[in-house]
């Protein structure tokens, strides 16, 4: 036996009992606001594995979210000839964003803005109802950290073994364990960065080139950046990202209220806490036996019994840890549970606890969410398949021709968002005695027919000449009317015709 083993064995025998068969875990909330001081080095956290329904839910969400992230670029979606068949693709070179049946052009980026608004309001609603569910279950920082901790546990063992290994001298075995852990972490990080770049290129074409060195430099760059950030954020920074870097812990205080369901230690039931001896009555004391199982399970390094705090990501692992202990000491589960501040007050006053999901703020967020969803859905389903931009020449704003008439020049950009070639009829509406001409196109009876290829932009230079003898105004409103000759779909594009007043 080495000295260290001896010391650990001694410690083990000296371990205090929190209750019959339940040892006190020597865990300190090292990342709580009180313990955490500026200028103090970070104290490592060794979260203990727990078993329970929330751990199962988190495993499920971990596989679901990572599964979507890694596999989505491989999903195919047939759009027709000449179009990419990747279901989700941000095509910078072609200037398109593909999402299953939706194809967004750069000029329609407001749909993405709408999607972000929807996501924000959805997050507000979820937070008002259930606290920081995003932080606890779905945030990439949480998911990847959870994955990294799982890998760490696989190689180094659970909490106690990891702590022992950290204190142990540098032997070959320790080096092997540490290096294999970091190798797995780096592999996960590289896969994370690798999957990211697949969203910007055709996945089956890009992946082989990534290995042969023929992929574009930007792919390697972003893969490198994401490998580095994943490795750092999930490997060594972990809870510090949430505590110091993320704004969300600060914002959430304004989004929750006393009726919000949050991971809560029921003070009214748990206090006064203390070790329980076998056979002692439970009357006159709290159910918390101060075993610190909740502290040992916490990946954020805090003590949930201190109440709601910005370090808490509401991951609910302390619920599982505590429920396990409660069943072992034969007390009802749910000393730590999803509960509201108001319920604690209600129970203290002898009232029955209740959950009020319908509150003015949740109704407000819900209504905003519904309205934005409807607006987005309507906009997406009824959006035009042809868009026209009219760019009027500015140098010079108008030209006098030899017969004294005035001409303005315009560049029409016709965006055909359908996947088939279409013919459009271009006419000018609004002013009299205007003659239309175009470069490379024939104009018959002031109407021009142009063909625009599917999923393409065509720019045409158009001249409008105002014949002499018309009353001269500095600015005359004009409308370019572009009509699909087959379907009749039409857009009106207002612009102006300029000339010198009264000349």
């Amino acid at each position, binding site marked *: 036996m080495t000295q260290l083993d001896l010391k650990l064995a001694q410690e083990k025998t000296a371990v205090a009992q929190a209750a019959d068969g339940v040892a006190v875990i020597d865990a300190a909330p090292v990342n709580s606001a009180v313990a955490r001081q500026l200028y103090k080095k970070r104290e490592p956290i060794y979260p203990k594995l727990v078993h329970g329904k929330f751990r199962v839910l988190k495993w499920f969400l971990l596989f679901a979210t990572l599964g979507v992230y890694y596999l989505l670029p491989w999903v195919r979606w047939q759009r027709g000839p000449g179009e990419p068949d990747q279901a989700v693709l941000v095509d910078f070179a072609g200037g398109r964003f593909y999402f299953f049946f939706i194809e967004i052009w750069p000029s329609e980026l407001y749909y993405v803005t709408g999607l972000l608004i929807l996501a924000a309001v959805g997050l507000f609603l979820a937070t008002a109802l259930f606290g920081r569910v995003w932080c606890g279950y779905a945030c990439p920082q949480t998911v990847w950290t959870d994955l990294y901790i799982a890998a760490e546990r696989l190689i180094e063992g659970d909490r106690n073994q990891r702590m022992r290994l950290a204190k142990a001298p540098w032997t070959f075995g320790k080096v092997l364990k540490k290096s294999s852990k970091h190798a797995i972490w780096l592999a996960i990080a590289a896969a994370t960065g690798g999957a990211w770049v697949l969203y910007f290129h055709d996945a089956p074409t890009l992946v082989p080139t990534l290995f042969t060195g023929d992929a574009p430099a930007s792919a390697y760059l972003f893969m490198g950046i994401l490998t580095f950030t994943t490795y750092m954020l999930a490997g060594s920074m972990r809870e510090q990202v949430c505590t110091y870097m993320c704004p969300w812990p600060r914002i959430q205080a304004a989004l929750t209220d006393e009726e919000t369901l949050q991971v809560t230690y029921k003070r009214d039931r748990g206090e006064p806490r203390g070790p329980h001896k076998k056979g002692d009555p439970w009357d006159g004391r709290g159910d918390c036996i101060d075993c610190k199982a909740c502290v040992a399970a916490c990946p954020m390094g805090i003590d949930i019994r201190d109440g709601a705090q910005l370090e808490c990501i509401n991951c609910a692992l302390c619920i599982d840890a505590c429920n396990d202990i409660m069943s072992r000491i034969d007390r009802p589960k749910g000393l730590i549970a999803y509960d509201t501040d108001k319920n604690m007050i209600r129970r203290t006053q002898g009232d029955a606890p209740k959950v009020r999901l319908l509150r003015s703020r949740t109704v407000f967020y819900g209504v905003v969410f519904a309205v934005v969803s409807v607006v987005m859905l309507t906009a997406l389903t009824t959006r035009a398949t042809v868009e026209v931009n009219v760019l009027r*020449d500015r*140098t010079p704003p108008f*030209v*006098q*021709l030899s017969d004294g008439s005035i*001409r303005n020049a315009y560049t029409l950009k016709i965006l055909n968002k359908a996947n088939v070639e279409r013919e459009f009829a271009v006419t000018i509406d609004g002013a009299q005695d205007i003659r239309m001409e175009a*470069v*490379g196109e024939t104009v018959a009876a002031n109407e021009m027919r142009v063909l625009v290829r599917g999923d393409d932009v065509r720019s045409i230079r158009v001249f409008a000449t105002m014949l002499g003898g018309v009353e001269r105004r500095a600015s005359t409103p004009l409308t370019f009317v572009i009509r699909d000759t087959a379907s009749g779909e039409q857009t009106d594009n207002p612009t102006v015709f300029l000339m010198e007043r009264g000349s």
Partner: protein
Amino acid sequence: MSDKEIDQPTGVETTGHEWDGIKELNNPLPRWWLIILWITVIWSVVYWVLMPSWPGLTGHFEGVRGHTERANVDAAIAALESQRSAEMQQLLSVSSINEVESDPQLLQFAMNAGASLFGDNCATCHGAGGQGFKGYPSLVDDAWLWGGALDDIQKTLHHGIRSTHPETRISAMLAYGETGAFDRGQIDDLVEYVMHISGRSANQEAVVRAAPLYAQQCVSCHGPEGMGDPSQGAPNITDAIWLYGGERADIRETIYSGRAGVMPHWTDRLTDEQITALAVYVHSLGGGE
């Protein structure tokens, strides 16, 4: 300095330096900061070897990579040219320049290429939008001294006007006053004549007096009706467009001192396909015939 002094609130060693009761703490530099510093120091040595670095007496160490910005620019230009070569080749191979306008893709390419060439080479005199200035013809209107069809514009670009090219377009409005060909009275009469045929009010007696002089001296270039002649670069003097101004004083100055604007030829400076693209662009500005 054998015994260290420890600052109480922070628990950090002091340097022993004290100013008015304030002691300097001896905090080490952060580890990560030092690591980055050493990485940059090592990298600088690598950089010296790879890249042009140390000056010598007769030159400098060129680095094992042989890197020069000039070579990078040449490579970038070559890459750009090869990228454009297909369309450029197409511009060169059309049997008639008019074919360019009937091919939407080629037209778009020629207009984009022409626009950047125009900005680099032509905008100084003809204006950013081709609107022209006094003495520098507008390219957006429908008056063309030497013709505004695509191949006319192409030829003007190739050979220039009164330029040093052997096949340059050449003609001159003579200085009838300076040379003494016309006297003052004759010039005044001709000014009235020009005012009259361009549709403005004029002294009718002077117009009558000037008519035989016009028929004798001016008709060969400007034509009997004053409609001009694009084959000689003679302007139409009956319309609303005046390169050098259409007021009496401007017209008098033109007849007295003559006019002979110069447009350089571009054969030596631009390639044939560039000139084709430029011609298409200029034609699309609006004045094309």
